[in-house]
């Protein structure tokens, strides 16, 4: 790409200019530190962002995603629907695994077969292979997947699956990957060594089919403590960190040695409400502390009031230090099926009070708002802020923050009336809709994270329609209408979408990713013009 060529030329220039000065100028190695540990190099063992980040340095997917989560050709060069229930993927010719094995359609078939059969997986990738009824290897560079029903999400599912080699990985166990022996892919980096929970050392795969990474060696360290990670960057022990704590942002912005890179993420922070109970909700009482006979949260006017009471801009400015975007829907702008014109509601306490009075609660009521205190950025401070805003319109709010392990179990058992959670979306409206707001249905696998048990048959019908529409433009229209409906009915109360922030030494530049993955191929020496 032209950008990369520019950057490389710039790096060369700065290396020439600075050559007498320092050894750092033309660096071949990069030391980076991530905040969440990579727990396994087996790309099919645990569906977890840090693991996927490391895997996407070692392996490729049929469909890769760019920094804005748009699907781009990976090991497949093109894909299309040949019949309503058959997808065809054309594979990239001449690709080799790190050990020299050739990549063919048979390896894809092997991968699809391995995914559901990884022993002891705490969260497998089988959800992405389940729709496939039959795999057909047409020729070494063409593969077809037959599904039961028309299935528009196939390319997106394929953007989640890392491709292995039949010859290399037949019978390979998770431990073989962790030891580094089986961590062999087609990706831009190969694994030199791996120490669980501590560091991974990579070297560049010079035979990589795509853009050549800027660094020949990468030391990928895991420093889970926020303060220590920032300190390691300032001390120069590492040159690049992710998950910059919001409390350090102001200081780092003012530091001449450091540059930041930011991208609006795909993770929405929202409030879930108890839609399940029509009678008393566990943490809602009248102003004297007596249980209310009816659950006020079932009334859409009450839900609207609660949403209108929240000053999202204030939360973003003061609690999040600007590292978020206020939101009134599931997905950020610029992503497929984002709803244009559906803005974050402006805080309007007067309108909120009127709605409450209309709904029959002129004096308000009491509620407890629950949330985690160690999961999302500033989570416990967000619910404190929301609690004050709700109290301002007469809904006297008690706030309780708990560690995630305790909190999430209770939320999953519908023990709360109102709670804060987050959701990292795929770039497709059906993903949050189906998981968060569709009616809970075990058979269809819908509403698995619908912890408030919202249910709206009209919405379900629209999601179903979208999920069988193969035309992307038509599907987008249906998904936008569905999201509008869900937001009008206040299925969830969206607060904001997090900004992903990385920090690096001034001599580096980085392409910030919406999907939070921290990868060495996105880092390069800064162009001479911007380096100081």
């Amino acid at each position, binding site marked *: 790409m032209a950008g990369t060529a520019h950057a490389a030329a710039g790096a060369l220039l700065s290396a020439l200019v600075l050559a007498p000065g320092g050894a750092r100028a033309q660096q071949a190695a990069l030391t980076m530190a991530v905040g969440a540990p990579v727990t396994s190099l087996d790309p099919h063992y645990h*569906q977890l962002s840090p693991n996927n980040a490391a895997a996407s340095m070692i392996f490729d997917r049929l469909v890769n995603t760019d920094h804005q989560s748009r699907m781009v050709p990976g090991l497949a060069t093109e894909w299309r629907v040949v019949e309503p229930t058959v997808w065809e993927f054309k594979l990239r010719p001449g690709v080799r695994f790190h050990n020299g094995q050739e990549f063919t359609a048979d390896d894809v078939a092997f991968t699809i077969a391995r995914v559901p059969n990884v022993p002891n997986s*705490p*969260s497998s990738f089988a959800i992405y292979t389940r729709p496939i009824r039959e795999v057909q290897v047409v020729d070494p560079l063409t593969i077809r997947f037959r599904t039961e029903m028309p299935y528009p999400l196939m390319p997106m599912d394929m953007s989640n699956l890392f491709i292995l080699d039949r010859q290399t990985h037949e019978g390979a166990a998770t431990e073989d990957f962790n030891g580094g022996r089986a961590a062999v892919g087609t990706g831009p980096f190969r694994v030199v060594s791996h120490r669980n*929970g*501590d560091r991974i050392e990579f070297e560049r795969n010079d035979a990589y089919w795509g853009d050549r990474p800027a660094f020949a060696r990468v030391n990928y360290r895991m420093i*889970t403590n926020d303060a220590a990670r920032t300190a390691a960057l300032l*001390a120069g022990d590492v040159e690049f960190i992710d998950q910059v704590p919001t409390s350090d942002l102001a200081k780092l912005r003012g530091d001449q040695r450091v540059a930041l890179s930011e991208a609006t993420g795909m993770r929405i922070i929202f409030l879930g409400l108890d839609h399940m109970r029509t009678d008393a909700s566990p943490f809602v009482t009248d102003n004297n502390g007596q249980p209310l006979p009816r659950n006020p949260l079932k009334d859409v006017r009450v839900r609207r009031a609660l949403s209108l009471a929240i000053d999202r801009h204030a939360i973003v400015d003061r609690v999040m230090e600007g590292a978020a975007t206020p939101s009134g829907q599931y997905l950020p702008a610029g992503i497929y099926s984002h709803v244009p014109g559906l803005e974050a509601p402006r805080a309007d306490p007067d309108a909120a009070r009127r709605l409450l009075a209309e709904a029959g609660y002129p004096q308000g009521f009491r509620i407890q708002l629950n949330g985690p205190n160690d999961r999302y950025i500033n989570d416990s401070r967000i619910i404190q802020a929301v609690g004050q805003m709700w109290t301002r319109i007469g809904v006297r709010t008690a706030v309780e923050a708990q560690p995630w392990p305790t909190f999430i179990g209770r939320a999953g058992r519908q023990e709360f009336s109102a709670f804060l959670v987050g959701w990292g979306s795929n770039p497709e409206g059906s993903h949050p809709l189906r998981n968060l707001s569709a009616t809970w249905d075990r058979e269809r696998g819908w509403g698995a994270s619908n912890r408030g048990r919202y249910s709206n048959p009209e919405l379900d019908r629209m999601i179903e329609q979208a999920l069988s529409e193969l035309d992307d433009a038509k599907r987008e229209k249906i998904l936008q209408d569905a999201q509008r409906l869900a937001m009008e009915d206040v299925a969830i109360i969206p607060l904001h979408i997090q900004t992903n922030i990385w920090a690096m030494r001034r001599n580096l530049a980085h392409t910030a990713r919406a999907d939070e993955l921290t990868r060495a191929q996105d880092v390069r020496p800064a162009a001479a013009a911007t380096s100081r």
Partner: protein
Amino acid sequence: MTVYLLRRLIQAAGVVLAMSLLVFLGVYAIGDPVEILISPDADQIERERAIRSLGLDLPLWEQYLVFLGKALQGDLGRSFVFNEPALRLILDRMPATLELAVGATVAAIIIGLPLGLYAGLRPDSAVSKAIMAGSILGFSLPTFWVGLMLIMVFAVQLGWLPSTGRGETVEVLGVRWSFLTWNGLSHMILPAINLSLFKISLVIRLTRAGVREAMLMDYVKFARAKGLSPNRVVFVHVFKNILIPVVTVVGLEFGGTIAFSVVTESIFAWPGMGKLIIDSINVLDRPVMVAYLMVIVLMFVVINLVVDITYTVLDPRVRLEGKA
């Protein structure tokens, strides 16, 4: 001696059993590991599969019996997170923690004993008062804060020492050690200091108190009256007698450092057992938690044994068979 050892071992087995039961019940009460480990994308069917695959679909008592059965064959289960045997994960990380703990304890003895002796022998001198005041700081400043300050001053401001991590290691007998290279050693200095501050203070205070008490004893007066040199009085007669409480406390502290140097290991990103256990607690990785606590119990039993044996060396009046 054999009977004594046997008795200690049986006690240890009892404690280990009780511990495993407590951890099982505790983790069960906190929450469901699957809720934490599972990808948010997973649907209901995938959740049920994960629960079965981790053996969490059985009733608690049955899970416990399965665990016990395997444990008796030396299998403490596989980590939910890493999919590796829990015991191996722990043993892999033990050397890192051990060398840090040994470094901190040695520093505590080398620095703490002389300072304590001095403060005990010259309680009224200005230097002694400074030592004692310093030891109060060592006691009361939180490790967390001191660790960050050490990083800020020595790594970020002065740039003398690396801020985090373990640095280069050398493999000896299949185990990686970092104290054998200068790079590795330089990575060890800050965390070891951070761990040892509290211990240094403790040793200073114990030694000083012991010395002050011993100096008034009849045997010291007698030794002096016999005309022994002051050095001999202090280093042979007094020293030996004050060591018993110091050895006890240092031994317990050493065990505590190995088991629970969680804060220091997190701040300095030191890949030891403390970091493993805190990460495992955060995701309710029960096999690692159980195995870890069992290893720790065994370790404390061994340390206490060593302490007891040291007593007999220091004080011939102590007989192992008599106690326990």
